[in-house]
Structure formats: C-alpha cells, structure tokens
C-alpha cells in the first residue's frame, strides 16, 4: 500500500471518527485458526445479518484458517474458497448462497424490470456485473434548451444499501466533479449527449456508468465499497484498552454483557450488571444505591448522557430506572475520572443512551411477569434519527395474588419510565441531539397514603467540528427530581409532603488534538441548583395541619476544567487534569449565627442574618486534581498509577443504612461544608491469549472529609437547621481489586475479587456527640471480602447459559447489647456503632437465553430468557433485629429473597 492510500485511509478514519461514526456491522473480524467452515458460518450469522444457504456435503471438510479484521465477507469468502471450486453469491438482503462449480444468480438483472421511463436508475440493484457498467442509461427527456443538463442521484453501498459519503462523481470528458454528501446524494452538471460518469469511492474501485444525457434527470447508483483490507489501520478498541488507556479504575459493560446476566424478575438491569464489577457493592438486595470503593451511595454521579439521575431506581431498588433497551453501554469510573466530569466524591457512572438506527424503523421490547417494555427507533428523513422507549409495570396482579395469601391491604405499586433521543445532523460539521428522560413511581400501602417520586431530565446538545483537530459539544438542560407523600387517613390530619430538586446546567466542552501526542479537553460546566428541601401542607378543606417548610436553597456551581492526554512515548502516556470548582450559596435565605468556637446548637445562636435574593451567603472554591499515567511494560501488560481529588457540594441526608426515596438532598451552606476526597491508586494490567483474557490488579487508598453522620435522634425530614444534628465525619477506605475476564470462546466470563475496608470517624473536634468515642468505625457498607463470578457457556448459537455467583462479607450493623425496662415495656440498649456483622452473603443465579430461529423473513426476532435467581435458596440475611417476644427479646434475621425465584421474559426486536 502506498503512502497516498495510507493517507487517504487515515483521513477516512478521521472523518468517520469525527462525524458520527457509521458502524459497519456486516464486516468480519476474528481469528479462525482452522475452525470448521460450519462453525465459521455460525459465528458470522451471529455477528452479522448474513444468512448462509448451502448444501452440507459441499462444505463438509472445509476449514477456515485466517484472521479477519473488519473485512468484507466477499473478500473473506473468496480467500476461503480459493483452493476449492466453491462459488458464492450474496443477495442484496444478505443471503449467502454457496454452490459448487457454478455461481448462482441471486438477483434479477436490472434490465429484467427495466422500464422505459424518463428517469432511469439502478434502483437497488446489486449485481455487480459488466452489464451494469456497460449498459447505457438514458437520462431525461429530450429538450432543446441548453447544451448541459443536471443529473442528480444517490450513491449507495452495494453491500448494505447505505449511502456512501464522500464518493467523487465526475464526468470523464469535462472532469466536472462533485462529492456525495452524508446521504450519498450528488448533483452534477454535464454536457448533453453520450457521456461516461465515473464514481470514485475512496479506497474502492472506480465505477463507471454510460449515459445518454437528454435533459435533467436522476441517476442512482449502487457501488462496491472498499476492496482494500483495512486491517492495517484498524483502531484497536476493546481488548487492548484496558492496557493502553492511561486511566485506571474504569469498568465498561455493554448491554450485550448485561443481557447475559441472570436477573431478578427477568429484567435486564444496568445497576445489577455494575455490581458484578470489582470494587462495587451494595448494602443489600433492596437498596437503591450502590457503593464504590467505600463511598456512600450519594457519592456516585449517575449520568444518563449529560443528565444527572437523582434516583436511579424503581420500586426501592428492585429495578434500576434505566430501560436497558435504550442503553448502548455503561462505563463506571471508580478512579481516573476525567477532568470534564465531577461533582461527586466516589464515582461517575456514565450511561450512554442508544441512538436511533439509520436504515429503517425497528424496535425491540420485552414482556416479563412484572414489567413490559417497548422501544421504537429509526430514521426520520435522511438526517434525523430517533429512538423512544417506554417501560411499565403491571404488578397489581401480583399484589392481588399476594393479597389472597397474606393480608397486605390496599397496597399498590406502579412505575413507568419513558425516554428518547433525537439526533439531527445539520450538516457535516454540526450535530444536534435532544435527550429526554422521565420516570414515575407511585405506591401505597393503604388506601389513604400515596407516595410518589419522579425523575425528569432533558438536555439539548450541539456538537460542532471546527476542523480535524478541534471539536466541541455545547449542552444545556435540566435535571429534576420530585418526591411526594399524600396522606388522607383522617380529614383533619390530611397532609401533603413533598420535596424537589431542580438543577439547570450548561456545559461547553472542547476536545483538541495537538500534534500526535496531545489530546486536550477543556471547558466550563455550570449548574444552578434550586432545591426545595421539604414542605408539608394541609390537604383538603378540613385539615388542621399547619403548613411548614424548610427554606428553599439556591446555589451556583461552576467548574472550569482542562485535561491533557499526553503520549510521552510509546511506553508512557499520562493524563493530567485540573478542575477548579467555584460554589456559591445564594439568598434569599435567613441563617443563624452561632457563637464562634461553639457547636452549632440552638443555645449557641447569637444572631441571625438575612440574605436578599441573589445575595451570596457563602462561597467555597478549590481545585480538583486528576492525574494518572500508564507505562507499557510489554505489548500485553502495563502498570498504571493515579491520584485524583474530588469535591461534592450536594449531600443526601439519610439516617438509614441504605438509600431510600425519602432521603432529601441538601446543598452545602455556611455550616455544611463541601465533601472532599482524595484517592491514590496503583494497578497492573495484563492481557493473555491474544487479548482474549484480561487480568487486572488494582490497589487504592482514599480519604474523605466533611462527610455527614447524625447525632442521636436527629430529624432529617423538615429540619430547618440540619447543621444542629449533623456530625462532621471523616472517612477512609482502601482495598485491592483483582479482575479476570475472558471475553471470547464458548466459555467466557469474569471473576472479580475485592478486599476493601471503609471506615468512618467522628471528627475529634465535634462537640455535639462522638460516635464510638471518636474512634474509627466501619461504615454501613464496609464488606471486606467480595467476590463475583460470571460464567457464560454457549451451548449453541441459539442457547446461551449463564451462571453468576456473588459472595460478600456481611455488612456491619449496630446491635443491642443489653435490655432494660422503660415506658412500660422492655427496651434494648445498642452497643457501639457497626460493631457486629450480619452473616456472609452468598448467592448463585442461573439463566438460559434462548434465541428464536434465524429465519430472515420473520417479522420479529424473539428470544426467551429464563432462569432462577438464588438457585440455592439461601436465606441471605438482609438485616437483623430484635423483637420482644413473651418477655424476652428474640433476635431475627430478615432475608429478602430467601427462596429460588424463577423468572421468564420474552424479548423481541423488529
């Protein structure tokens, strides 16, 4: 390959990388060391839309021995069939016919249906034979005016009927030329008469069409795409990234991987998938959040595209609130968080929504015992794609059923979520995208009290490509979360309680390549917080409940960030970043003044200060550093190190061991300081067996400041002066994470083991109360040993089985140590905070995914997923507690899923 072609290919790659990259799903990749041809075909059918038709005897002894790297099937098959007399034909709908000796004609020649119309075109012709090239097309109707005529048309790929962008269409004689646009459209002015139109697709053959131009007309063409092997410029992604990317502590999970995991109630769940990763655990099966490297659940930033999801779950964490059909993949940053992301102390979970497909309208969905989901996607016109999805529960029947079994009263639970993305390509350099998300949960336990919460998010973003080096994304949007309780038990005491949070954000983010070795990313991110921490109002005319509310809070947070990924040499790459965070807490607000040096208690209030609307009451600012580096030891192994600091200005007030929907948010104010943390990490990464096996080992140590714990009897709901109940707390966490993943082969899967500790300490200067005498105590989610196993075995192309196991040390709890009589009853006295552990957790799940048959003509492709959650039926304790029973206190452990739970779900796509 000469330098010129290399250059062109490079440009092509950049262009396709910069513009919204069009995937070529029907390309073939993989290493086939002497595999039977039949197995090879199965693999192809699995990965592409091609379907093979053949006579078994023809291919019986054929083996495939080659390595393909994003090659066309034609090229691959040609090579395989070279030593044989097998021939193949590929129809335009992707059927591959293999025959001996003579090639089958699979499509009618164009002329078969040729009609004598004024506009000739090839239609969707695919037969790439001399006929097309040498046939003379007559364009337009004869007209006397002028000597030139305009021809228009669309250039499509012969292989997949997709528009070809950037193909040069020119007239052989006049050399008049034009380039096809992203939809493959062109317009060219040529002299009338017999002409030869040439089409040069970059990297492909030059095609010709003979035309007789009589007047303006249309000429559509299908041409072959590239014929060169692209193997030399394939950008390696996936397997090698864990070694080569400079950040550490980043875990990616694709939807395909998540689909294989057994799930509760058969619902594919991104959060459950995340929990199979090392360093991620959860306080229990019914908890809303997850904990990353010893951090609290509110220290995770959950981003759906650009939007923050405040409550990532439905039904208290039984389901995550993101519809898996609408997700392309998730990436969890446990460390090595890029400078353009921030705002939480522990991690960033980036959920990348799916974009609508461009070829046709399609969709997917699923039907399970509790929920159903449906999504539709496709193009609108040639420049716009959309995807919309909805998910809903119909759990009432289950509750009705349970009602027969047990007296559960008028309990009802309902949830739904809707989301969608529209992307519009204004032109080659500008892309607009709108993303929206809405979820709703509603539940009640008796007819009188209704609880509900809702996430509302939307964002508009505009991506602009300045040139090959610089691109920018500007986005703006709003994230909202509402919670409400409505009680109508007694008309006199009927009330409505609610809180909500709104954050509006604007973000400008630039990415710039500087030379070959630097990639800069820089920008600004502003968030305007508008928080109603809680209010209660009488409900109904008779109610005598006194309205009460906690003053609304407003704050502005602006972060300026700059990051550089610098490839010092082939072995050493570093990324560094600085994020400067400015935070202002604004009026209108009335704040007490406490005597200096005294704890924030009511008796120490010496005055009060009023702040007018928009007046700055308190500001905080400080830098966040992000640094990590990678040193490649060999082609297959590297070591990485990193340190990053984080700040968090918004806090979740929670006095229970898990995140609950009632937990309210609080902004940093003069008394509640921003949480700060620093994390150091070191890791070793090694890939084996041609990248099919990845191994990583990471250690980390982190400290956290200004965490929140609460003094005894703290009231969190409707507390005007929460600082009087908050204890300033420090935290530290450290751990070792080992991860092994085999991603290919019939048997694949991953093993993760984590040893970690998460400890807290009431700041010794805290005067209100000191938990455990200000000694270090384990946090609620301190689970030292944690192991996860996921094993997939592909029995055949259609049957895939998965076994998943999870083990962790029991979480610490605070238990009673003595009993006494008080207030007419026996009471318990609790020992030190988190000094006892509940028994260890172990669970085994099993699932089978059964693909439907692969007939192309089916209107929908269905698949069944069934399995058993907690196969062993182990009653893993969720918590333990004591109840006075016949004069003595009896300890009990509560298990949530104590029996094997079978599930079945039908999924389909069309």
């Amino acid at each position: 390959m000469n330098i010129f072609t290399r250059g062109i290919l490079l440009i092509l790659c950049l262009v396709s990388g910069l513009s919204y990259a069009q995937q070529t799903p029907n390309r073939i990749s993989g290493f086939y060391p002497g595999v039977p041809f039949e197995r090879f075909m199965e693999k192809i059918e699995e990965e592409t839309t091609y379907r093979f038709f053949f006579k078994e005897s023809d291919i019986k002894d054929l083996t495939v021995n080659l390595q393909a790297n994003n090659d066309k099937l034609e090229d691959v098959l040609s090579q395989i069939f070279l030593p044989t007399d097998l021939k193949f034909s590929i129809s335009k709908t992707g059927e591959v016919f293999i025959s001996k000796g003579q090639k089958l004609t699979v499509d009618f020649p164009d002329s078969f249906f040729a009609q004598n119309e004024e506009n000739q075109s090839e239609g969707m012709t695919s037969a790439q034979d001399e006929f097309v090239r040498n046939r003379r097309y007559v364009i337009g109707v004869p007209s006397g005016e002028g000597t030139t005529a305009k021809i228009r048309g669309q250039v499509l790929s012969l292989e997949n009927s997709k528009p070809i962008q950037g193909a040069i269409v020119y007239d052989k004689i006049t050399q008049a030329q034009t380039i096809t646009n992203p939809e493959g459209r062109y317009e060219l002015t040529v002299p009338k008469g017999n002409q030869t139109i040439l089409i040069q697709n970059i990297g492909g053959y030059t095609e010709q069409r003979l035309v007789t131009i009589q007047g303006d007309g249309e000429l559509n063409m299908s041409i072959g795409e590239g014929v060169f092997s692209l193997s030399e410029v394939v950008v390696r992604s996936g397997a090698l990234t864990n070694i080569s990317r400079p950040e550490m502590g980043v875990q990616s999970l694709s939807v395909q991987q998540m689909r294989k995991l057994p799930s509760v109630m058969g619902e594919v769940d991104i959060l459950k998938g995340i929990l199979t990763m090392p360093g991620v655990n959860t306080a229990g099966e019914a908890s809303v959040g997850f904990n990353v490297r010893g951090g609290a659940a509110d220290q995770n930033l959950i981003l759906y595209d650009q939007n923050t999801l405040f409550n990532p779950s439905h039904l208290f964490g039984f389901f995550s609130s993101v519809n898996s059909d609408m997700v392309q993949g998730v990436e969890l940053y446990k460390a090595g968080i890029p400078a353009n992301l921030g705002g939480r102390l522990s991690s960033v979970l980036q959920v990348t929504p799916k974009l609508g497909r461009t070829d046709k309208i399609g969709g997917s969905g699923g039907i399970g015992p509790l929920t159903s989901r449906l999504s539709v996607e496709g193009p609108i016109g040639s420049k716009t794609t959309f995807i919309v999805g909805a998910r809903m529960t119909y759990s009432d029947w289950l509750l009705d059923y349970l009602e027969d079994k047990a007296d559960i009263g008028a309990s009802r639970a309902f949830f739904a979520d809707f989301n969608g993305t529209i992307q519009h390509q204004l032109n080659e350099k500008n892309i607009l995208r709108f993303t929206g998300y809405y979820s709703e949960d509603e539940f009640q336990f008796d007819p009188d009290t209704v609880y509900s919460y809702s996430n509302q998010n939307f964002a508009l973003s505009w991506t602009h490509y300045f040139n090959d080096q610089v691109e920018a994304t500007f986005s703006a949007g709003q994230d909202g979360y509402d919670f409400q309780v409505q009680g109508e038990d007694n008309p006199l005491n009927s009330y409505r309680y609610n809180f909500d949070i709104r954050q509006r954000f604007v973000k400008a983010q630039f990415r710039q390549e500087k030379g070959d070795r630097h990639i800069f990313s820089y920008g600004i991110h502003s968030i305007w917080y508008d928080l109603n921490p809680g209010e209660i109002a009488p409900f109904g005319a008779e109610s005598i409940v006194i309205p009460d509310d906690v003053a609304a809070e407003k704050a502005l947070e602006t972060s300026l960030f700059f990051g550089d990924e610098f490839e010092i040499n082939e072995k050493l790459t570093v990324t560094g970043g600085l994020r400067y965070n400015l935070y202002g807490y604004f009026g209108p607000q009335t704040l007490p003044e406490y005597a200096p040096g005294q704890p924030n208690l009511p008796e120490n209030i010496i005055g009060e200060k009023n702040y007018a609307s928009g007046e700055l009451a308190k500001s905080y600012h400080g830098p966040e550093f992000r640094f990590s580096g990678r040193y490649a030891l060999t082609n297959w192994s590297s070591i990485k190190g990193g340190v990053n600091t984080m700040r968090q200005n918004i806090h979740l007030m929670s006095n229970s061991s898990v995140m609950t929907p009632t937990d309210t948010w609080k902004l940093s104010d003069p008394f509640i300081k921003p949480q700060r943390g620093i994390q150091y990490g070191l890791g070793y990464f090694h890939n084996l067996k041609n990248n099919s096996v990845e191994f990583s080992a990471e250690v980390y140590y982190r400290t956290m400041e200004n965490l929140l714990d609460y003094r005894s009897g703290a009231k969190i709901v409707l507390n005007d002066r929460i600082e009087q109940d908050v204890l300033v707390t420090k935290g530290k966490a450290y751990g070792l994470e080992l991860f092994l993943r085999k991603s290919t082969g019939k048997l694949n899967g991953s093993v993760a083991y984590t040893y970690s500790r998460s400890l807290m300490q009431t700041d010794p200067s805290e005067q209100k109360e000191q938990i455990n005498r200000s000694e270090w105590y384990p946090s609620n989610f301190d689970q030292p040993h944690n192991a996860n196993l996921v094993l997939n075995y592909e029995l055949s192309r259609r049957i895939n089985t998965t076994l998943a196991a999870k083990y962790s040390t029991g979480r610490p709890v605070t238990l009673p140590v003595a009993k006494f009589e008080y207030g007419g009853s026996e009471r318990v006295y609790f020992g030190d905070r988190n000094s006892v552990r509940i028994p260890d957790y172990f669970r085994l799940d099993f699932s089978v995914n059964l693909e439907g048959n692969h007939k192309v003509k089916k209107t929908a492709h269905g698949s069944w997923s069934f399995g058993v959650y907690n196969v062993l039926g182990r009653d893993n304790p969720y918590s333990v507690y004591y109840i006075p029973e016949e004069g003595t206190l009896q300890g009990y452990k509560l298990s949530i899923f104590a029996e094997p739970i079978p599930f079945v779900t039908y999924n389909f796509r069309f």
Partner: protein
Amino acid sequence: MIDRASRFSGLWQKYLLSVSRIALIRGDFFSRSRASFFSLAILVVLFFSCRTPFDPEIPQTASQILVVEGYLDMQGTLSELKISRMSGLDSSQSPSPETAALIYLESSVGTKYYLEEDSEGRYLFQYNLGFDDTYRLFIELQDGERYQSAPLTPIQTPEIIDVGFLRDEEGVEIFLTTQGNENADDFLWGFVETWAYRPRIGTSYIYDASIGNVRDRFSDEQISICYKSASSPDILLETSSRFQDQVVFRQTITEIPENDERIMDRYSILISQMAIDEEASKFWEILKKNSNDIGSIFSPLPSLIRGNISHIDDPAIPVVGQVSLGVIRQKRLFVDLQDVTPWNFVDPQFNDCIVSAEAVYQVDYQRIFGSGDIVPVVPIMERTTIVAFYPTYRRCADCSLYASPILPDFWEED
C-alpha cells in the same frame, strides 16, 4: 420447620400491624412513612422474604448500665421514680432493680425533698412544690455510686380538654384532645386499660364443703365478673405547635380492633397526660425509634440513648434515663358494650363450654364438685327446693382463673 415458619410469618404480620398502629397513633407522617416503607418492602417481597431466628455473639459488656425513669408530679399527686440495672439480652429475668438508694430532689436553694422507697427499685414522691424554681435530682446507690440530673424545670401540664371514642368499621378508637401553650408544647401520654371480663358461663353458686352443699356465692366469692388490666407499652408523643392554636385535636391514644375482648362488657381507660420539654421529647423519640424501628429494611440507624442523668464522679460512665418534673393530668373514659354494638367477642378456647345436660344430684356433690374442677351452674328445682345442678367445667365459669375478681375502686357502673 414449616410450622415454625408459618408461626413467624404470623408474628411478622402482627409486628407489621403494631408498627403501623404506632405510626398512626403518632400521627407523624415521618415515622409513618418509615413504618410504611418497611411494610411495603415486605409487601413487595412478602412472597419471597422470610425471617429466621438469629443469635449473634455479642460481647456482654454494657449490661450494668443504670436506668432511671420518672415523671415527678409537683402538685402533690403520688408519683414514682424507678431505678434499675440493665440485664443481658439473653437473660430471661427482667432487669434487676436497684434497691436501698438514697434519692432526693434538691431545689435551687438547697432544700432536699427525699423520695421514699416503696417496693424494690420504686421510689415514691409526693410534694407540693413551686413551679418557678429549678431542681436537681440526686441518686446515691447502695455501693456509693452517685448520680445527678441536669437542672430540671417543672412544667405545668395543661388539663386534658376531652377524651372520647369513635366507632368505625375497624373497631374503636380512643382519642384525646388537649391544647398546648408556650410552656407546654410537647406531650407524653400513657394509659392504663381495665375491662370487665366475663366467663362463657356465669354461675352464682358454689359448693361449700363445710356444709356439704351448694349455696349462693358471697360477693367476695363471685367468679362471674372479673377485671383485666394492662398498661400501655407504646410511647405516645406529640408536639402541639404542629397544629393551629396548639390544639391537639382527637389525638389517637389507642385503637381497639373490632370484636376485641376488651369491650366484651365494659371498658375503661385512664389516660395520663404529661407535658415535657424538648430534650425529653427527643429522649422518648429515640427510645421509641430504637424499640419500634429496629433493623427493618428502611429503618434508621439506632441512636445512642442517654437522657439527663449523669454519673457525678465519672461522666464517661453511661446512664440511661430522662427525669421530668411537672403535673400528671388524668382523665378516665368508660366504653360500654352497648355503645359499640354489634361487637361479637368470641374466645374460641371456650367454644366447647356447655352446661352439661347430666344433672348432679346432691348425693354426688362432694364427689363431683369437691375437687373444684366442676362447678354447679343451673339448679333443678323440685317445688321450692334445689335438688340438683347442671354443672360445667370450672374453666368455663370461673373468670378468676384469667383475671382479678376484685372490683377496682375507680370502677363506675352507669
């Protein structure tokens, strides 16, 4: 095991009920939401969830902590202070009382008002003292350990405005109305319930071995009506400033489920109202939270409980107790069966109780009735003399087996 499991599930339901009832009584949406979350989580997974006994190894170190409880009435009503020591969780005996302690309340000028030991660990207080002073409680134990309270300010508890009951489809709800003021904002209520208990079969006859015959029972021998009593195990708290004009209107005190035994005849409840300060309110709140909300799915972390008593010589030694001074206001309410009819209390354990159709004649009195297990019920008359009795088992006719046959002195018949 299955038996055990179903029993647990039954208890579970009961526990849920009690939790939600407490929440209802409290009328506080917060604790209610907690309780309800708890319930919902269970509901969602009820089918799958289960609980099993659990006995973790707990270091038994904290079991010697002193516990002090008391609300002392400053207007001369007899009130009591209880002191005891905690006991280990696994011990079946109740916590041990602290006897022979020297306890007094000291006014700001140093006047000491001693409490008098009544029964074990109970000390009585009966003084009429001023409300403008501050006081301190001192406790000196037998072994010389000395404890004191924080300074205490008595609170004038407002009168109970009204007590009443409401009959609805779920049963009977006992309520109270009161009004707080600037000094008395937080309220603590307690109650003692007493109800008449009748056996399935009533009899006014007794076999008297000394005369060898059946005679009418004397009034101190009656077994046809008894009285059961129970005091409130719940902590009832409310803050009046949550409501308009600080009127706590129809605060639920207790709920009697439909067809409950308590209103089989006549029911009485004595409600005590005590005003407490904010600190005490917090203490009781923690106590309540720690007992009702332990270890459920969404329950808050248990709180450290202390109170206003401390060890004089070593403040690091933990003590649990909140002593308050004030006035105990009381009101009694009676509810009669006819007020709530239809009300069908049926105790299934007596469903086999019948008056035997086989009469016992006088010659057999000693043989049949002598042991006391069978009692005479319905006389058979021949002209004007009783010649025989239709009998029944004592367990069907003797309420004193289950309750006290002595009429409480407060009992009023209408």
